[in-house]
Structures are given as structure tokens and as C-alpha cells.
């Protein structure tokens, strides 16, 4: 990239009618020395960025190369696959119930995302837009559950689910989402607060019920935040390992991709090539989702950081 030539910008125009510049303002060309320095700076910047990119990409490249190796070659120090065994991508579907794992993971992730949205939007609305006794206290309670390590509640929950005969099943992974999630409530509330009070007041004057106001005024305006919360919940559940490990146990028909992948072993050794093939297929939907919803991702992450 060349920064040696000055950037073409329209010369500033004088607005006052009677003040006329004697000559058109011409941007002074950048002195060659400064131009050279800028160019070198740009080269250095890109060199650093490319080196850093390589570090971030290399593990992915190795995963890909291993994914198309023969099983025997993964146990040798060779890096380049000889031959490229593309059939790995079909044989994983034969060797393990990959489609079933994918279906299970997608079911859990989708249903619990629906649950979180359905349950958290009204709570966030009540915490940000309605006046009622105990609102402040309720918000403090939501905040404090944010700090609660899941380890504190997981043992009694496990016991409850055992009593309900919910283990092994998807229910422990889905049902709690329908009763709200502290982090999602918190994020949504913070975003709802930025929506001008006048809008909801106007709707109230027009005789809208609280539910209508939420659905017709708040939800359309809060779409970016709701999309971000949905996306994060989906991803969290798609990637989650601890929950499925605990609640799906040995029932292989229920396993998710995370649990299936962690058990991807024959009696003697880890089949690295197929493990990497599965890992790639596991990451693929996430990567596709990222490119489809890049803005929601970046804005959502920023939202969590800035509002948090």
C-alpha cells in the first residue's frame, strides 16, 4: 500500500459569500522524507499483523492438515499429508453417529436460546420500564446471581434432576433456560434503559398495555441487543461441555458434539485424524454463523464489555 502520495481530499470551501480565497487551497505534497517514513511504518505494521495472523491461523491449519491424513501418518512427525485422505470427511459419519450428535447439539442450543429470549425479555422489561415495589431489590438479586459460581448450585441441581428422573435427558439442559438467565437479563435491561422513556410513555398515553408496549415498542428497537443475547446463548450451548457431560452421561444416543468428541477414542489410542475432522465439522457452523452475523458478534461483544 502506498502512502507516499498525499490523500486526495476536496479542498475546504469557504462558505462565507464575500470571503474568497485568493487562490484555491492546494494541499502541500507530503515531503518525501515523511512519506518514506509513513510507508516504512505501514510496512512494519502489516508485517506485525501478518506475523500475528499466522500465529492465530497456524493451529487451524494444522487441524486441517491432520484432518485429511491417514490414521498411521498422524503418529509420525510429518506435517504434510501424504496422501490427502479426503474420505475422512465421509468416514467420520460412518464411524460415529455424527449426524445424531449434531442434531442433539442443535436441538439443545436452539431450544434453550428460545427459552432464554422468551423468559428474559419480559423480566428485563419489568426491571427497566415498569415501576413496582421490589424492583431495585430484584435487580440486585439478578446482579448477585451473576457472581455465583455454578459449582455452588450444580450439586443440588444434579440431585433434583436425578429425583425427577431427568438424567440422562436433554431436560436439565433446556428447561432452566425458560426460567431466565441472569447475564442475559442484565444485558437486555442495560440496553432497554438506553431507549428514551418518552417512547414508552407515549404508547402508554395511547392506551397500550405493558405487554403491547414491550412487543411493539421495545422489542423492535432492541433488536441488536436481543440478537446478540440470542447469539451468545446459542454459541454457549453449542460449545458447552460441562452440562452435557454431567446430564447426558453414558447414553450415547443423547450425546452432543462436545461430549462425543471428548470420547473419540478407540481402545488403543486417539484417532487423531478423525478427531480433527470432527473438530473441523464442529467448528464449521460457528464460523458460518460468524460470517452471516459478523456485525451482531462484534457489536454484541462490545456491548457486553461497555455496558457490563
Amino acid at each position, binding site marked *: 500500500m502506498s502512502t507516499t502520495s498525499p490523500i486526495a481530499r476536496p479542498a475546504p470551501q469557504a462558505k462565507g459569500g464575500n470571503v474568497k480565497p485568493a487562490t484555491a487551497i492546494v494541499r502541500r505534497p507530503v515531503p518525501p522524507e515523511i512519506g518514506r517514513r509513513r510507508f516504512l511504518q505501514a510496512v512494519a505494521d502489516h508485517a506485525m499483523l501478518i506475523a500475528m495472523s499466522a500465529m492465530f491461523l497456524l493451529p487451524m491449519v494444522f487441524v486441517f492438515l491432520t484432518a485429511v491424513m491417514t490414521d498411521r501418518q498422524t503418529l509420525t512427525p510429518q506435517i504434510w499429508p501424504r496422501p490427502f485422505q479426503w474420505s475422512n470427511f465421509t468416514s467420520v459419519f460412518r464411524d460415529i453417529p455424527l449426524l445424531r450428535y449434531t442434531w442433539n447439539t442443535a436441538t439443545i442450543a436452539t431450544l434453550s436460546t428460545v427459552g432464554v429470549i422468551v423468559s428474559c425479555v419480559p423480566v428485563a422489561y419489568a426491571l427497566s420500564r415498569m415501576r413496582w415495589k421490589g424492583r431495585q431489590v430484584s435487580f440486585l438479586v439478578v446482579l448477585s446471581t451473576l457472581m455465583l459460581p455454578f459449582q455452588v448450585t450444580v450439586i*443440588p441441581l444434579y440431585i433434583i434432576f436425578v429425583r425427577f428422573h431427568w438424567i440422562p435427558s436433554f431436560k436439565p439442559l433446556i428447561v432452566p433456560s425458560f426460567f431466565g438467565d441472569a447475564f442475559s437479563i442484565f444485558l437486555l435491561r442495560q440496553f432497554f434503559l438506553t431507549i428514551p422513556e418518552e417512547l414508552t410513555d407515549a404508547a402508554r398515553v395511547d392506551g397500550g398495555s405493558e405487554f403491547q408496549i414491550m412487543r411493539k415498542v421495545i422489542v423492535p428497537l432492541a433488536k441488536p441487543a436481543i440478537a446478540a443475547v440470542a447469539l451468545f446463548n446459542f454459541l454457549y450451548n453449542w460449545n458447552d461441555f460441562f452440562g452435557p457431560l454431567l446430564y447426558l452421561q453414558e447414553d450415547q444416543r443423547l450425546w452432543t458434539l462436545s461430549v462425543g468428541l471428548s470420547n473419540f477414542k478407540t481402545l488403543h489410542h486417539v484417532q487423531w485424524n478423525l478427531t480433527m475432522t470432527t473438530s473441523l465439522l464442529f467448528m464449521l457452523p460457528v464460523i458460518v454463523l460468524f460470517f452471516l452475523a459478523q456485525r451482531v458478534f462484534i457489536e454484541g461483544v462490545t456491548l457486553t464489555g461497555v455496558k457490563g
Partner: protein
Amino acid sequence: MSPWLIGFLVFVLYPMASSLYFSFTRYDLLSVPVPIGLENYKFMFTKDPYFWLSVRNTLWIIVYGVPIRIVFAIFTAWLLTKPRRGVKTYRTIFFLPSLAPPVAAALAFVFVFNPSTGPVNQLLGHLGLHNPPLWFYSPAWSKPSILILGLWGVGETMIIFLAGLLDVPRQLYEAADIEGANGWQKFRLVTLPSISPVIFFSLVIGVIEGFQFFTGAYIASLTASGGTTNDVATNLGFPQNSLLFYSVRLYGSAFVNFQMGYASALAWMLFAVTMVCTVVIIKTSKRWVHYAGGGGFR
């Protein structure tokens, strides 16, 4: 509100109360909990050979991991503020690994860092390093390996810092230029105070997550030890318990040994320590976190 209230009672308050109760009992899931007073806590501090070990491992990953991760996040975000072209591509490349499922990421790293067949040590060998580390297979290098895995997934933190860096008012830099500040002074006196709320946020989240770190260590230990899931008990923390983090230890005593009472005591100790650390960070933050609006912690 009411579904959330039910959820809160059933999925938070009741479990909290009962795990507090369990922490004063002996409970193996098969028979009723037997109250034993403070025995669990006494055992934890005086007799459990793995308790202090897991505390040390966890503190290691927090004390080294959290600051290194924040510095790395600031560095990568800062790199992204520099070029005029290609920012989006670089940003995508830096960010994507953070979306990788933790199980897949941990498996990939154990393979890539495999001492004898992995590509990393091959490359190090070509560079003339003849005794490269054994990474996930050596007690001395397993935690640094986990740390590198964490750096690879720095993306989300980096994006937050990037937003913070882009928010620093330009006038501040211009004023510093006029005062004749050099690059380092500008960074220390302008950039750092401006992004201090983001540092504060990542510090709190990093410490909380550090205490709860589980998946990466669990997968790395079980994979590197080469064992099957049947010998989880012996392989947790492999190699030589160097990856036996607090949450891994807690998982082991609850769901491998079924000592529900003792595991509940471990969980409450974790909660207490997390609270203390968070409060300490918030208290000291008043001295070093600057909010542009002039307000304090909100």
C-alpha cells in the same frame, strides 16, 4: 417477573441453601446426608492432600494468566488500530479462534503441541532447539501450555479493548503531541487511563473465570494421559496433578467420588474466595479506574 421468580427459587435459591446444608454433612447420594458439623472444612484445610495443590494451580493460572491475557488483548487490539486497510480481515482472523468450541480447541492444542509428533516441536527442532518442552506431557509446562491455549482464544477480550482504544478522544493525543510526549508517555498517560474501565472489567471477569476454569484442563489431562473415560479418577490433573485446578478437583470429588458433602464445602469456599477477590478489586479500582463521565463504579 413470575417465571423468573420461580426459576430463581427453584434453580438458584433452593440449590444454594441445600448446598450450604450439604457442606456440613457427609452425603454419598445413596443414603441420607449425615450432619458432621465443620468436619468437611477441617478436612479441606488440614488433611486433603489435593486441596492446597489445586489452590496453588488455580492461583498460578490466575496470577500469570489473567494479566498476560489482558496485556496480549491490548497489544493485539492496538495492532488493529494501526493500518488503514485490511483491518476487517485481520480482526476476523484474530477473533475467530475465540469461537472455537473449548473441547475442540483443547484437543487441537494437545495434538499440535505433542512432543514427538506435533508440528510445534518439529518447527522448534528446525529452528535448532534440541530439547523442546514436553508441553501438555510435562508438569512444568502443562500450565504454560494451557495459558497459550487461552491466548489463542483472546478474541472477545480483544474486541472489547479495540472498542475502548477507538473511543479514546483524539484531542487527548493531539494535546499530548503538543506537549512533546513520546509514544510510551502517550500510552501510559493517555491510553491506559482511558481504557482503565475495560481493564477493570476484564480483570474481574478473568479472575472469576479463572477460579471456575474446567473444560480445557479436563480435556487436556484426559487426552494427554491417553486414558479412556473409565479412568477419569486417576487421570484428572495429568501430568502429575499439575492441571488439577480447583474446579477439576471439585468435579472429581462430586461426580467421580460422589462425596457430595465435601464437594459442596469446596463450592462454598470457592464462592467466598471469589466474592472476596471481586470486592478487593472493586475497592482498589477507585484508585486506578478513570471513568470519562467522572462517575465511579456503576
